[in-house]
């Protein structure tokens, strides 16, 4: 431990502060913007700021702000993990980082093939952003993934990549793909093309949101039950919802931690499968070979 310089330590501390500060800022923002006297309610993302624009006002919502803060936090976390790397790993954090990189590269290679191995950073970014966004609900914050706009944005991004790889053999080849297997099925193929991003967005959003709604409803019900059962207690003791201790925490293990991480994994997995499935690899290479032969 003695070989680390003072500067190294100072950067470490700075990065840790950078990691924690966004979360603290989000909690402060939530406390400041929540109207007083509000009990348990199920609301959408709060609108924090409205910027007037010519066609449609630009709304800065809680989900946007929270996802920016999560991005800053993840950025600081990985700067912290990768700062001071050596050729031979001798710290725990370098071993952890190497493990993450190996796992993601192995996952991408296994599911997408060698041609797509450059996708590992993209998949890891989606995985980390989605998982950390869902885990934000552990702090009582609004998880950005329970807003349809956020997941729809990711799904549209993946859809653009899918379409790009479908167009690799030229636009005519892409349009001909709609006429498979028979020509009159083209409208159905067209709909199923757009069903991919819609179902991806709805799946992630629906899972996270349903977890939030169910745990909120149970917390509200337990508060009501306490008022009935323990309402006879004198003074302020009667106002404390004692029965709310315990059960919501157990539910939160499933709804917040397990479900959030699983949905992140599934989103990444599906985008890998769709992207690698969209690429007509044999036709593309045959076309390249033909082009080369023509040039000679």
């Amino acid at each position, binding site marked *: 431990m003695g070989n680390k310089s003072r500067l190294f330590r100072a950067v470490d501390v700075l990065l840790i502060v950078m990691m924690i500060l966004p979360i603290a800022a989000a909690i402060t923002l939530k406390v400041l913007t929540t109207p007083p006297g509000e009990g348990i309610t199920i609301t959408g993302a709060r609108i924090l700021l409205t910027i007037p624009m010519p066609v449609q006002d630009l709304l800065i919502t809680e989900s946007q702000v929270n996802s920016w803060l999560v991005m800053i936090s993840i950025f600081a976390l990985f700067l912290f993990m990768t700062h001071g790397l050596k050729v031979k790993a001798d710290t725990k954090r370098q071993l952890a980082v190497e493990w993450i990189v190996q796992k993601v590269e192995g996952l991408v290679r296994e599911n997408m093939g060698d041609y797509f191995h450059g996708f590992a950073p993209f998949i890891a970014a989606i995985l980390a952003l989605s998982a950390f966004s869902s885990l934000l609900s552990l702090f009582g914050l609004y998880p950005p993934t329970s807003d349809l706009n956020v997941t729809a944005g990711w799904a549209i991004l993946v859809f653009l990549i899918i379409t790009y790889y479908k167009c690799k053999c030229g636009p005519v080849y892409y349009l001909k793909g709609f006429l498979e297997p028979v020509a009159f099925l083209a409208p159905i193929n067209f709909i199923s093309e757009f069903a991919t991003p819609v179902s991806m967005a*709805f*799946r992630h959003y629906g899972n996270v949101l349903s977890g939030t709604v169910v745990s909120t409803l149970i917390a509200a019900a337990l508060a009501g039950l306490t008022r009935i059962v323990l309402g006879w207690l004198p003074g302020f003791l009667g106002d404390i919802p004692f029965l709310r201790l315990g059960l919501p925490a157990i539910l939160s293990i499933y709804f917040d931690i397990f479900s959030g991480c699983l*949905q992140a994994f599934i989103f990444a*997995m599906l985008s890998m499968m769709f992207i690698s499935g969209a690429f007509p690899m044999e036709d593309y290479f045959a076309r390249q070979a033909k082009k080369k032969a023509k040039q000679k």
Partner: protein
Amino acid sequence: MLELAIGIILGCCALGAGCAMIAGIGPGIGEGNAVAKACEAIGRQPESKGAVTSTMLMGCAVAETTGLYALVIAILLIFVAPNTFVNLLLRVIG
């Protein structure tokens, strides 16, 4: 009269949300089947537990989609539709 109309709107939205969630039956049965088959597979070949489990979770998540569509409809009916319809009614009345 207006109260009655608004009451009908709210009640029908709640009923519709309840009806929409009948769709939860389908994914329930489907995921149950998937998990049952996965358990059988693990029983037959315990060494392939990891691969079977991850494939099963993946399949469960995809099978869940139809249920989630119903959930989205139900949530729209509870939180969004009443406001929209009441505003529409008030605008029609003038």
